[in-house]
C-alpha cells in the first residue's frame, strides 16, 4: 500500500515544479492558465476513471456534471454571496444527487443503452443552462467568480490557485485510489468484467452502479468548481456534448483505469491544440482522426503503450524475470480427509420446477431434495436441462413454474445477489472469472458478501477499511493455498483452463457458503487434473459444505458423489446412489441411446 502510494510522488513533485519551469512573460501566464484548466479537467476525468475504467459504465454526460457543479457553485457564490467553501460543498452535493439519479436509471439499461441515456441527460443540461436565464444568466454566463481564501489569506494569483488545484487533484486521486483498493473497488471491477458473475458473488448491481455514478459526478463537480474559480467566468458552451467526448478522450488516451494516465491524458488533450497549432485550419480534423486512431488501435491508451514500452526496454536491459509459469504446485496429498456423513435434514428442496424458452421446454417438472452434507450430482445427456436447473436455482433465470426452498425459506426467483447472500454460491460451465483481474483479486471478490465497509468507511475510516481489505486478501490467499494454487498474481485470462476452474471454485468458497453449486467442474480437464479436482472437492466437503454438481465424467462422479439425480429431456428419470442410477436401464438408454434398430 505505502509503496503503491509512493509511486505517485514523482508525479506530484512534477506538478508542483511545473510553474517554476514555465517561461516568463505573457506566454508563461498563458500556459499557467492552460495548466489550471488541465487540472480541473483532470479531476473531472478521474470521475470517468471510476465510472468507465473501473466499473465499465459508459457515460457521455461528464461535461453535464462538470457544468452542474460549476454553475451551482457560481450561482451560490456570485448571486447569493454564499461563502466559498460552503458553495463548493453544496455544489458537490447537488451534482452528486444528479449522479445518483442517472445511476438509478442505469440499472435498467444494458451498457449500450446507457450511453444513449447519458447523452440525453447531457443535451437536456445544456438546454437548461442556455435557457434558464434567471438562474444561469443564459448564454451570457456568470462572471466575477471568486477564488478561495485559506487561513485568512486570499488566493487570487494564478500561481496560488494553481497550487490549490494541485491539492484538489491530489485529494481526488487519493479518493479514487482508496476506492480502487477497497472492497467496493473489487465490486466495481467485477461489475465491469462480468455482471452475471458479479451478482452471483453477492454484489448488488444496483448499488454498485449508483455508487460509481455518484462518485463520478462528485469528482466532476470538484473539477467544475476548479474550472469556474480558475477561469473566473463560465458560459454554457463549455459544458457541451463535445466536452463530454473530450473527457472521454482524456480517459481513453491515458488508459481508462489509470489515475496517472488519466491526469496525463487531461494535460495532453488540453495542450494538443497548442501542439497542433502549426496545422492551422486542419487542427480539429486532425484531432478527430487522432481520437479514432488512438481509440481503435491503442486499446490500453497512450499511457498504457508507454508503460508497455518502458517494460519492454527494462526486460531487454535486465532480462526476463521468471514468473513461475511451471511451478504449479497442485496439492497432492494421499491422506483422504474424513468426509462428513450426509444427514437426512433437507437443505434444498426443488418442487416441480419448470423453465421454458419459447417453444423449448428446457426443464419440465423436476423435483429433488439435497440433504445437508450431501454431495449430490445431477447427471444426464447434453441438453437434458441440468444447467438450466442450476441457473434457475441461483437466480439467474426466473422459473416458469415450481418452487425452490432453501433452509426452510422460499427462494424462488429471489435474484442472484440475494441468493448468494443466503449462502449459496456457484461456478459456471464456461468459467466466468473476471478476466482482467488476478487470481487473488478474483477470489477476494468472492469474499464481498462478508464485508461491511461502505464508501465512507473506505475513504475515511482507515483502520477498519484497511482491516477488511487485508482480511479479504488474507482469506483469498488462504483459500487458494487450501486448494493448492500458487500463481496468485497472474491475470485470470492468462491461466490455463484447469487452473481457471480451481480459481473459480476458490472464489465460490472463500465466503464460506453452505451450499456450493458446481457446473461441470471437470469439463476439459485431463485425467490428472480430474484427480486433483476430486481431492479438492473432498477437502471442501470435509469443511461441511453441501454440494450440488453437474458432471459428465462418471468415474469422477462415482468418486465424489453421495447421491445422484439423472435428468433426460427436461425431466428427472432416476435417483439414488451413483451405482444404483448407473445400472438403471432407463439411464443407460438416456446415455448411450436405444439399442433397438433405428430405421
Amino acid at each position, binding site marked *: 500500500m505505502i509503496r503503491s502510494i509512493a509511486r505517485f510522488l514523482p508525479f506530484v513533485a512534477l506538478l508542483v515544479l511545473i510553474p517554476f519551469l514555465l517561461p516568463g512573460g505573457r506566454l508563461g501566464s498563458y500556459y499557467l492558465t492552460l495548466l489550471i484548466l488541465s487540472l480541473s479537467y483532470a479531476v473531472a476525468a478521474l470521475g470517468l476513471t471510476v465510472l*468507465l475504467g473501473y466499473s465499465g459504465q*459508459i457515460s457521455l454526460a461528464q461535461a453535464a456534471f462538470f457544468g452542474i457543479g460549476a454553475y451551482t457553485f457560481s450561482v451560490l457564490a456570485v448571486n447569493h454571496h454564499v461563502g466559498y467553501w460552503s458553495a463548493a460543498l453544496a455544489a458537490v452535493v447537488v451534482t452528486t444527487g444528479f449522479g445518483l439519479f442517472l445511476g438509478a*436509471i442505469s440499472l*435498467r*439499461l*444494458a*451498457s*449500450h*443503452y446507457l*450511453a*444513449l*441515456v447519458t*447523452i*440525453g*441527460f447531457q*443535451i*437536456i443540461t445544456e*438546454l*437548461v443552462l442556455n*435557457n434558464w436565464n434567471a438562474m444561469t444568466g443564459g448564454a451570457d454566463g456568470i462572471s466575477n467568480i471568486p477564488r478561495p481564501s485559506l487561513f485568512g489569506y486570499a488566493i487570487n494569483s494564478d500561481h496560488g490557485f494553481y497550487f490549490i488545484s494541485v491539492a484538489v487533484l491530489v485529494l481526488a486521486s487519493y479518493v479514487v485510489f482508496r476506492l480502487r483498493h477497497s472492497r467496493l473497488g473489487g465490486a466495481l471491477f467485477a461489475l465491469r468484467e462480468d*455482471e*452475471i458473475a458479479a451478482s452471483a458473488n453477492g454484489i448488488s448491481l444496483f448499488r454498485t452502479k449508483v455508487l460509481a455514478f455518484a462518485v463520478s459526478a462528485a469528482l466532476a463537480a470538484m473539477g467544475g468548481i476548479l474550472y469556474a474559480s480558475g477561469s473566473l467566468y463560465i458560459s454554457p458552451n463549455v459544458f457541451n*456534448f*463535445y466536452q463530454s*467526448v473530450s473527457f*472521454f*478522450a482524456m480517459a*481513453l488516451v491515458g488508459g481508462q483505469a489509470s489515475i496517472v494516465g488519466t491526469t496525463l491524458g487531461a494535460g495532453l488533450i488540453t495542450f494538443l491544440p497548442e501542439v497542433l497549432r502549426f496545422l492551422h*485550419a*486542419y487542427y*480539429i*480534423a486532425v*484531432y*478527430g*482522426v*487522432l*481520437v*479514432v486512431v488512438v*481509440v*481503435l*488501435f491503442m*486499446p490500453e491508451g497512450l499511457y498504457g503503450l508507454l508503460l508497455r514500452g518502458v517494460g519492454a526496454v527494462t526486460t531487454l536491459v535486465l532480462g526476463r524475470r521468471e514468473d513461475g509459469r511451471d511451478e504449479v504446485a497442485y496439492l497432492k496429498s494421499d491422506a483422504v480427509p474424513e468426509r462428513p456423513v450426509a444427514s437426512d435434514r433437507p437443505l434444498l428442496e426443488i418442487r416441480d420446477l419448470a423453465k421454458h424458452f419459447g417453444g423449448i421446454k428446457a426443464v419440465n417438472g423436476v423435483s429433488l431434495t439435497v440433504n445437508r452434507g450431501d454431495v449430490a450430482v445431477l447427471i444426464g445427456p447434453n441438453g437434458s436441462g441440468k*444447467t438450466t436447473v442450476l*441457473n434457475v436455482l441461483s437466480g*439467474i*433465470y426466473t422459473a416458469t413454474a415450481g418452487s425452490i426452498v432453501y433452509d426452510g425459506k422460499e427462494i424462488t426467483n429471489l435474484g442472484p445477489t440475494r441468493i448468494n447472500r443466503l449462502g449459496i454460491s456457484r461456478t*459456471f460451465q464456461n468459467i466466468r472469472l473476471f478476466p482482467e483481474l488476478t487470481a487473488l483479486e478474483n477470489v477476494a471478490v468472492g469474499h464481498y458478501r462478508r464485508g461491511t465497509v461502505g464508501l465512507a468507511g473506505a475513504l475515511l475510516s482507515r483502520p477498519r477499511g484497511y482491516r477488511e481489505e487485508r482480511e479479504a486478501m488474507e482469506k483469498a490467499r488462504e483459500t487458494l493455498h487450501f486448494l493448492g494454487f500458487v500463481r496468485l498474481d497472474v491475470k485470470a485470462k492468462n491461466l490455463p483452463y484447469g487452473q481457471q476452474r480451481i480459481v473459480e471454485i476458490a472464489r465460490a468458497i472463500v465466503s464460506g457458503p453452505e451450499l456450493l453449486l458446481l457446473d461441470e467442474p471437470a469439463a476439459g480437464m485431463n485425467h490428472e487434473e480430474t484427480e486433483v479436482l476430486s481431492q479438492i472437492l473432498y477437502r471442501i466437503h470435509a469443511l461441511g459444505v453441501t454440494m450440488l454438481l453437474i458432471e459428465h465424467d462418471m468415474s469422477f462422479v462415482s468418486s465424489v458423489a453421495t447421491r445422484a439425480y439423472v435428468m433426460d429431456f427436461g425431466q428427472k428419470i432416476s435417483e439414488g446412489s451413483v451405482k444404483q442410477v448407473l445400472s438403471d436401464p432407463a439411464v443407460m438408454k438416456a446415455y448411450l441411446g436405444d439399442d433397438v434398430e433405428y430405421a
Partner: protein
Amino acid sequence: MFSEFIQLTIAGLAVGSIYALIALGFVLIYTSVNVVNFAQGDFAMIGAYFMVSLVVVLHLPWWLALVLAVVATGLVGALFQLLIFQPVRNRPRNFLPVMIATVGASVFLEQAFLLIYGPIPYQLPPIFKADSVAVFGVHVYPQYIVIIVVTAAMVALLNWFLERTKLGKQLQATAQDPDTARLMGIRVAWMAALTFAISTALGGLAGLLIAPVYTVTATMGSSIALKAFAAAIVGGFGSMKGAIVGGLGIGLIETYGATYISGSYRDAFPFIVLILFLIFRPYGLFGEKVSQKV
C-alpha cells in the same frame, strides 16, 4: 385555429420523417453490428452538400441529383465502415471504442466538409418552387409534402428489400447470428458494409430533403441526429417500426410544443419525452427486454 393545427401537423410529420430516416439508420447499424454510429447525422450533412454540388454547381435535374447524392453518401458510408468498424470487428467489447471512434470521425467529417465547402451556409432550392400548396384547403409548404412522400416511399422500398429479397433476408440472418450466417456462406463483411451503406444513404436522403427548409452547414446533421437518436430510443432501439413511430412522434411533439408551450425550449421537448420514457419505459415503445446469455 384548425388550419394552424393542420399546418403544424404536416410540419411535424415532415420533421419527424427526417428523424425517422436517421433513426432507421441508427437502428439498422445497431441491430446488425451492435454498435451505435454517432456520425449518423453527419451523413445527412454529406448528402445535403452532395446535393448542393449536383444541383447548385452542376445544375443536374433534382431527381437525378437526389439519386446520385444518396448513392454517393452510401458509398462514403461503406468506406467509413471499412475504416472505423472493420479493423476491430472481431475484438470483444468493441462497442465503446467503435462508438467513440465514430464521435472522432464525426468531428473529422464536419471539419473536412467545412474546409471543402467553406463556412458560409449554402441555400438549397426547394424541389417545387411554389411558396405554398393547398392541402384540404390548408396552405402548407410544398417541401414538407415532398419530405413526407419521399420518406414514405423510401420506407416502403426498405421494407420490400428486407422482407422480400434474399439479400435482405441474408442481412437479417447476419444480424441475428453472424457465425451461423458465415456457415451458410453469407459474406458477413459485405453485409456489414451494405448495412452501413444503406443506413448512411438514408441519412443522406434525410439531409438533402431537409436542406431546403434549413440551410446547409457542416454542423447541420449533429442536432438533427441527436433528436433522431432520442426517437430511436423512444421507439425501442432495435425496432424499425419503433424508429419510424418514434421519429414521427418526436417531430410532432417538438412542433406542437414549440408553438403551444414554449418556443425557446423547442429543442428540449424531444429530450423531455426521452427522459420520461427512460424512467417509465426504458426499452421504448416496441423494444424487447433482452437478457444476457449465461
